[in-house]
């Protein structure tokens, strides 16, 4: 049998397998590949959404460089991303360590349960409640608390003051114990073999030494995973900012995703908005690549 016939008979033998794959590929072709390709194409066009898109080459990208709101949004997202990484690397990890170091099994279970509980609250509710907390006097919770403590000079219109709005946004979610991240750390700690922990104990290591020398290096995989997840999530999620400040006051809390959304749906500049999407794509691919490069080949096993 020649190769072509061979392939043909193989295809005929497995036609039903392609049938099983068909739904998945139909969905991703129509709702993933086509729009993604369309985005890249339209980034090089002027497109008001109604008529035909006109090819303009790199014009949109050149305009981006001189768009001071876009440049400001890049600076903001840089600060927000740095803060998000610090938060996710420290606070859920501390919570997981504390829980892991409890002797009581039941205590471990209940603290875990209580700290995970917020994931049942819809994201929009969390954001709206925090917007209320950061709200103006006299009803905003933070301002009311400062009033109660007699610290009236610390009171601010947190989300409405251009000098403070970005800091207020960073404070949202305090004490930043992300439930999923904490679960991931906790599972990582549980997977550290008991022998290693026993050995560190026999060597007379204090809890502090064990955390620094054993736990943290062995959580390397978890840190790496969370860095990548957090980077991708932070760069593309602007729903929270839309609700909290809508990028304001002015553009003090503008982020690229939100600017893309506003350019498209408020200004009908769909080609220009697509170009912002492409910049975000390139940024995410680059950051993921750097993460993988920097954090490679250091898998620790004892």
């Amino acid at each position, binding site marked *: 049998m020649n190769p072509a016939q061979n392939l043909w008979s193989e295809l005929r033998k497995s036609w039903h397998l392609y049938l099983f*794959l068909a739904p998945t590929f139909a969905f991703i072709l129509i709702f*993933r590949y086509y729009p993604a390709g369309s985005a890249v194409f339209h980034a090089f066009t002027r497109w008001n959404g109604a008529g035909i898109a006109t090819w303009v080459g790199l014009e949109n990208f050149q305009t981006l460089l001189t768009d001071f709101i876009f440049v400001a949004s890049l600076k903001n997202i840089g600060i927000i991303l740095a803060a998000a990484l610090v938060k996710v690397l420290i606070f859920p990890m501390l919570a997981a360590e504390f829980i892991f170091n409890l002797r009581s099994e039941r205590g471990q279970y209940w603290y875990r349960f209580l700290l995970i509980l917020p994931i049942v609250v819809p994201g929009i509710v969390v954001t709206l409640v925090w917007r209320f907390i950061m709200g103006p006097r006299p009803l905003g919770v933070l301002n009311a608390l400062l009033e109660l403590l007699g610290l009236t000079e610390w009171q601010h219109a947190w989300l409405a003051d251009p000098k403070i709005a970005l800091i207020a946004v960073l404070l949202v979610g305090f004490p930043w114990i992300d439930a999923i991240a904490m679960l991931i750390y906790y599972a990582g700690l549980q997977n550290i073999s008991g022998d290693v922990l026993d050995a560190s104990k026999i060597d007379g290591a204090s809890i502090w030494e064990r955390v620094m020398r054993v736990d943290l290096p062995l959580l390397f995989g978890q840190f790496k995973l969370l860095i990548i997840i957090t980077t991708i999530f932070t760069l593309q999620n602007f729903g929270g900012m839309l609700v909290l400040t809508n990028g304001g006051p002015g553009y003090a809390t503008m982020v690229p995703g939100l600017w893309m959304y506003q350019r498209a749906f408020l200004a009908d500049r769909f080609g220009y908005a697509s170009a912002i999407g492409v910049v975000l794509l390139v940024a995410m691919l680059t950051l993921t690549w750097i993460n993988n490069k920097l954090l490679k080949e250091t898998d620790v096993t004892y």
Partner: protein
Amino acid sequence: MSTISTSETASALSLRPSRTRQPRHISDFVVSVVLVLLVILTLYPFVFMVITSTKSYSQFLHSYWIPAWPPHIVENYVAAWNQIRGYLINTIYVGVLTVVGFLFTTTLAAFVFARFRFPGKELLFGSLMILMMIPQILQLIPAFMWVRKLQLLNTYWVLILPYIAGGQAYAVFILRTFFSSLPQGLFDAARIDGARDFQTYYMVALPLSKGILATLAILRVQQVWNDLIWPLITLADDSKRTITVGLYYFQGETQTQYGAMFAGYLIASVPLFLLFLVGMKQFMAGVTSGAIKA
């Protein structure tokens, strides 16, 4: 190897007593104090929400921090329920259809990729996996144009179909790893009994993967529940809106009815709470194992 880790976790648990009985340097008391503080700070915003949801406007003004008497529970919750009931029903409807479609398509594809060899397998799998590198935000605008052209705007399908399509790559990846780890003997036995390929899928593979399917379903429902931007731009018709968009507008309509507003937030959290109550154990094991080990 997403399956293994539940057993690994179990063995880690059984090892625990032998190493925890020895004296430690930090007492449970100190650790507990820190943890209680963290729990209070983490949950306080929601406690505030619950307390405020029982107050009238004047009660809220006059006893801001503490519960007030008499509570206005019925009044606030009825007002909130009447406003968001429709949004909740829409979201549940969209969520159920999404999960059914999502699990059906991803399990079928993952099953084929895990247990069979056929021409083009690597190419097809690769072209699916590469989607994990393409962020959804890139396609937001063209996807909107596209569903407008398909005349899906203001229908439930404008949510359901893209929601099924999103997350395919991740789910197929996790499920393929799981299906690959099932012992071949089970499939051979079924085949000897005369089962065809599709029958081994729903008689062998699916029943063994209830745990991981529950985890994926919960994650998907949570994403549907939390999505704001897509329904915001595709559903102008208020009667079709999902809970997240509904709440986004809801707070604007009830100027000073803070009690009802927070009651609405609370009602919106109940369905996910029930879902997690049922699946919490499964979820705690599944998320961590699936995310780390697959």
